[in-house]
């Protein structure tokens, strides 16, 4: 894994003269999936790569050790053994990129990962008053520290939308800076909640403010906003990542989350990363797909590739 993004001083001039044209962004986003496609064994390999980038997620009020444990076991064995063997991938230790849960469920994950021999899989915890962030900064920071103490290796925070909508980018920057410090060694993913930012220009500015503050990943959404991971939003964010990389030489990861359900979409997400940022961004250390039901669809597609028949849902182990 390459060095983490240390962040930079806050410099508003990086985005003062930025213009985003939504219709043009949409036009490019629409053709991402029509200009490229992968078929046959390429599709199978790409889908496996998508699996390795999934942040397998459960973020519900009724999460308990029962379903969290099931999630962790699935994370360790995301694709049926027979399929993995047929694909010649049995020696590759295919797991998902991470599991993602609420802070209170982090200890459950730690236990489950031990039980399934999956301790290499990162445990991501949302934090900072997820999903709204409407709690005092002090408790938001404390939440991060507690989650890390409990064993979380990745923290998904939400940014302050009040600051963002009022163009207080310095404020956004400073909070994220403190959160990065609170994370310590744990990796920081900053959720922009793009569906609540009002404009693409704000999405771009929020992306840069978070990267300047030291985000390891920027992430589209919590999954709880009205509009979540869409390709136009993603395009604006990955263009910001490219700009940041060109200015600083630091590679920041990208995580779309919310509403990603189909295997075909998963391939299009990989295409987007490959086209806009290059092959480095096709690995779990720079790309994650936040999803829950996506994995099942991918597994069914792989089943079809291997057996030439479509699987029933009940033939795939649920997570």
């Amino acid at each position, binding site marked *: 894994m390459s060095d983490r993004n240390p962040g930079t001083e806050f410099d508003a001039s990086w985005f003062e003269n930025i213009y985003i044209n939504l*219709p*043009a*962004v949409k*036009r490019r986003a629409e053709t991402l999936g029509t200009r490229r496609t992968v078929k046959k*064994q*390429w599709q199978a390999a790409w889908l496996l790569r998508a699996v390795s980038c999934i942040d397998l997620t459960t973020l519900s009020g009724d999460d308990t050790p029962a379903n969290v444990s099931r999630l962790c076991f699935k994370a360790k064995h995301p694709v049926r053994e027979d399929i993995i063997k047929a694909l*010649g991938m049995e020696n590759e230790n295919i797991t998902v990129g991470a599991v993602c849960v609420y802070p209170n469920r982090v200890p459950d994950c730690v236990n489950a990962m031990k039980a399934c021999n999956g301790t290499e899989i990162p445990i991501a915890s949302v934090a900072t008053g997820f999903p709204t962030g409407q709690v005092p900064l002090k408790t938001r920071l404390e939440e991060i520290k507690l989650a890390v103490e409990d064993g979380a290796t990745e923290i998904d925070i939400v940014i302050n939308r009040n600051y963002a909508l009022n163009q207080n980018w310095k404020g956004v920057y400073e909070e994220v800076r403190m959160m990065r410090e609170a994370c310590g060694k744990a990796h920081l993913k900053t959720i922009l909640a793009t569906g609540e930012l009002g404009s693409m220009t704000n999405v771009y500015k929020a992306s840069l403010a978070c990267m300047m503050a030291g985000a390891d990943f920027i992430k589209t959404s919590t999954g709880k906003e009205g509009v979540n991971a869409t390709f136009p939003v993603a395009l604006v964010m990955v263009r910001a990542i490219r700009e940041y990389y060109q200015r600083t030489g630091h590679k920041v990861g990208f995580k779309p989350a919310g509403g990603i359900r189909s295997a075909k979409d998963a391939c299009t997400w990989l295409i987007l990363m490959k086209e806009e940022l290059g092959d480095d961004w*096709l690995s779990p250390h720079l790309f994650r797909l936040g999803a829950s039901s996506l994995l099942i669809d991918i597994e069914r597609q792989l089943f079809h590739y291997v057996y030439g028949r479509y699987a029933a849902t009940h033939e795939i182990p649920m997570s």
Partner: protein
Amino acid sequence: MAASSAQKVDKPANSVSEIFKSMSYGPAPEADNVVKAWLDDHNRAFGHFINGEWVKPEGRKTYQTKNPATGEVLASTIQGEQEDVDMAVKAAEKAYQSWSKTLPHVRARHLYSIARHIQKHMRLFSVVEAMDNGKTFRETRDADVPIVVRHFYHHAGWAQLMDTEMRGWKSVGVIGAIVPWNFPLMLLTWKIAPALAMGNTVVLKPATYTRLSALLLAEVCAEAGLPPGVFNVITGGGAMGSLLADHRLVDKVAFTGSTGVGQTLRRLTAGSGKKLSLELGGKSPVVVFESADLDSAVEGVVDAIWFNQGQVCSAGSRLLVQESIHDKMVEKLKERLTHFRVGDSLDKGMDMGAIVDESQRKSIDEYVEDARKEGAQIFQFKESIPSKGCYYPPTIITNVQTVSRVVVEEIFGPVLVVLPFRTAKESIALSNNTIYGLGGSVWTENVSLALEVALSIKAGTIWVNCHNLFDAAAGFGGYRQSGYGRDGGKEGLFEYVRPAWEERPRPGKVEGDLKKFGATLPNRPTVGNNETVEIPVNGLSVPSIDRTYKMYYGGAQKRPDAPYSRPVVNPAGKVVGHVGEGNRKDVRNAVETAHAAAPGWGKRAAHNRAQIVYYMAENLELRRDEVAGRIQQMTGGKLEECRSEVDISIQRLFHWGAYCDKYGGGIQETTLYGATVKIHEPVGVIGIACPDEFPLLGFVSLFAPAVIRGNTIVIVPSQKYPLSALDFYQVFETSDLPAGVVNILTGDRDHLTKYLTEHQDIQSMWYFGSAEGSKFVEHESAENVKRTWVNYGIARDWMDPEQGQGEEFLYHSVQCKNIWIPMGDIFAN
């Protein structure tokens, strides 16, 4: 659940585990089996499609059509000859007798059926087109064929509405359509959909390289129930195209292709009475301001110049970038090309396909190598090019200027030239520094800037923050040497209709040397034959004071450059006055002043122009008796009739005054989310040669529509009876008409017509004189592809409102610009 039937894993290089590491794309071919079956059904040998059936005359040469991506021969087609052209045109002529009388609603059903049938065979069309042309299947699937379908649906609607929306117009007859190879199916559709909708029948010649989709369409149209002979396809070389255009029974030639061939067709059809529309080349600018979304502009450039391998008439081949962001933009473009994919047209993961033919590829390469020798910097990403097949890499050329051949000429390939500019004003000057005027795009988030630049670029289509969007509801076509006429929209229909009162002019063969036309000045002084006017002063009869008529340009009365006079002789043989004998220098001067006046006049508020024209009517009425008397003096007509001519002239001024602020354009109902705005812009400087008859009304009927739509004009009044027009300059002077808007040159009509037509900076020439003069005007107009309007020596009744102030006057007074303005900033909360 057993896993026993698991399929065998491939060899290591392409194994899942290797691809898992490399994350390469791999091949993604679209199947060609259905197309091959269709070709096999025809034994891979096609004839013409005439009168609803396949025709394969004996003894014809053949042409093997190839897939440029692979070199594979797809089928053999035949090279038609005169006899075949005859057969097709006669079939179309026969079908026209019934098709033109078919109820609009029934024609609408036919067009609707064609649209439906193309949709049924969409995949087949898309694959045929990709294989025959070399363009990517992605584009034929997502652009060409959907646009074709939309075009037929849209024009089914125009067929349905012809009686109401096109009242006063009728069909033309047999259309000879000649189309190029870059969008074989799409561009032929742009011709035949409006042609059939308006009640015409068509003989189509597809391009040599790309004949298959046209032949497939002919077959599908027959399947859709289109009556035999309404749409015919004949294949052949360029010479056969000329035979088609020249055919006596062809009433209109519709052409898309190179400017050179367009000029040939203009000369070939000159003086024949055939209508002609030309959609020609381009060198369209992409103007990127520092206030643009640069990443989106990069994708815009991809759409502008790397769509269809740059083989697009409206390709954005000149990138003009504001100096402050020039280097950044160029860097972004270069980076973009590092992951650009070029390859087999049927591979679904390609950005660009093959160049249509080796000869075209060579021509592109010559341009680029020329630029290299000149010292230009050439950036190509050659890694993207397959080793076999007819491919050319996407190319960016910097360090070139306006003098470079690659900046001036149309390359028709994936080659972009980049030039910096400093200010918006300079970007407009650079944009317009070309003989072409087909398209252009403007990239900025500043809406005021975008609209001002869009209006200032002289081109038929301007895209704001996008490039190369097309839709049936918006006309596509050029200014300047990009041609005239529009494909699409209501504006496009006018290319396939003529005024209902008018028969197709069929002037006899005009003999005579065009080079000598208008060359001499025949008149001599007429001493001793003057009509003397005596007036009583204090009981004495004294000669009236001599009145010297001068020419009028730049808002002042001017003597001719060479001060010769020509007499104005009445029917009794008496000289009733002298006018200046204008020559080429007077033409030069008048055109200069007209151009000087044009920008200001075009920007005047329409209300203001209307007031001036109404004021002219007011001032003319004050002189009603005097002007009527002058007409009588010259023509010897009855005073009543002369008065009537004055009165109708006044009405006509009111008519056109009314139209000053009621023909500006409109909103086109395209598929764009946003506004597609059609603007009726002035044509520019128009040269007008008035008819001899109706010395006042003819003059008024012609100058008024031109002027109210913002054109400035150089007008030659009735050669025989010019004095009424000269009386009018006092009306202009008292009506606040700005200097230079109307410029009057007197003298020999054909002599002045010659120099007006030959002037490269006159945008249109209207000529109402002889058949020979009409032929001359059309023929010579080819030189700079100016628009023309001629009468082929046939007089019209200027008193009749249909003939004297119909919609055709507006058609000739404007050119359509469509501005595409996408909207949207809201994406979530």
